[in-house]
């Protein structure tokens, strides 16, 4: 899932600027699970900003509203009424959510309340770790389910760099050497021969390197040729 972190309160105050009416919008999906932008966080941010701006002698009307997901138009339709007289929308969604709100309500100024960090999972309560770089051409089938692009500091594909020490990365000793993990896993499953198969150079065009990406599924589109 998408992992994000709340921006500092001082930065949020700067982002809402002189606006007198602000709506804080929470998101009920990824950012709820990583405790950054869910309903509770939206209420806390809303309340904190009301208090902080009041102490500065700049009282504002700040309310909050949470939708199930900020990345789908149908859920954003629920915001039509709450944003009517609002000057600034402070989105506690990931970068996708912020942009979706801006696109769906082009006359409204939308600012981000979070910093979207990475795609990952909680390895324990309160600790999230990166697992996927969304490269667009998944090779997990030949690396034992461990991604060298997301988990290797250098995103190496040919094996370890030789700098690892006791299974830890030379760049950041707190990071496990991804290739050590890959080797150990394949070895434990008796599949080390997978590493001996020659692989062609990776086509990075499917990754962010190839520019903004899009998927079109004609079989799912409404009014598509298939339907006709």
């Amino acid at each position, binding site marked *: 899932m998408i992992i994000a972190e709340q921006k*500092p309160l*001082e930065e949020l105050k700067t982002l809402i600027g002189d606006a007198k009416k602000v709506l804080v919008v929470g998101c009920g999906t990824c950012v709820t699970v990583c405790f950054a932008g869910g309903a509770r966080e939206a209420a*806390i941010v809303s309340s*904190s900003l009301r*208090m*902080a701006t*009041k*102490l*500065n002698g700049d009282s504002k009307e700040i309310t909050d509203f949470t939708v199930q997901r900020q990345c789908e138009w149908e859920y954003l339709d629920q915001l039509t009424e709450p944003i009517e007289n609002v000057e600034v929308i402070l989105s506690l969604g990931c970068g996708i959510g912020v942009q979706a709100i801006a696109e769906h309500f082009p006359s409204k100024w939308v600012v981000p309340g979070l910093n979207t960090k990475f795609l990952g999972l909680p390895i324990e309560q309160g600790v999230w770790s990166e697992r996927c770089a969304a490269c667009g051409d998944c090779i997990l089938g030949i690396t034992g389910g461990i991604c060298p692009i997301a988990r290797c500091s250098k995103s190496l594909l040919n094996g370890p760099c030789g700098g690892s020490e006791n299974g830890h990365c030379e760049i950041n000793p707190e990071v496990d050497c991804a290739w050590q993990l890959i080797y150990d896993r394949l070895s434990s499953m008796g599949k080390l021969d997978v590493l001996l198969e020659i692989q062609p150079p990776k086509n990075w065009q499917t990754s962010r390197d190839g520019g903004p990406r899009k998927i079109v599924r004609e079989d799912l589109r409404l009014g598509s040729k298939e339907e006709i």
Partner: protein
Amino acid sequence: MSAKRRVTYIKDLLAKIGLEPERVQMFQMSSAQAAQFAEAARQMAGQIEALGPSPLRMKDKLLDEKQVEE
């Protein structure tokens, strides 16, 4: 343990908002420790008296006075 974490979080949040973190305190004791409870209550009351009314309430009071003048 959970309460202590929450109190720490709230103190941090109050400081960021601009309020005094000392307005929230945690005291640990059992329900049988009446004397300690009384002492904690006395201590907290003294703390709050020293800090004075909440700045937010003072802002409300100033705003009301301004509106009356207008």
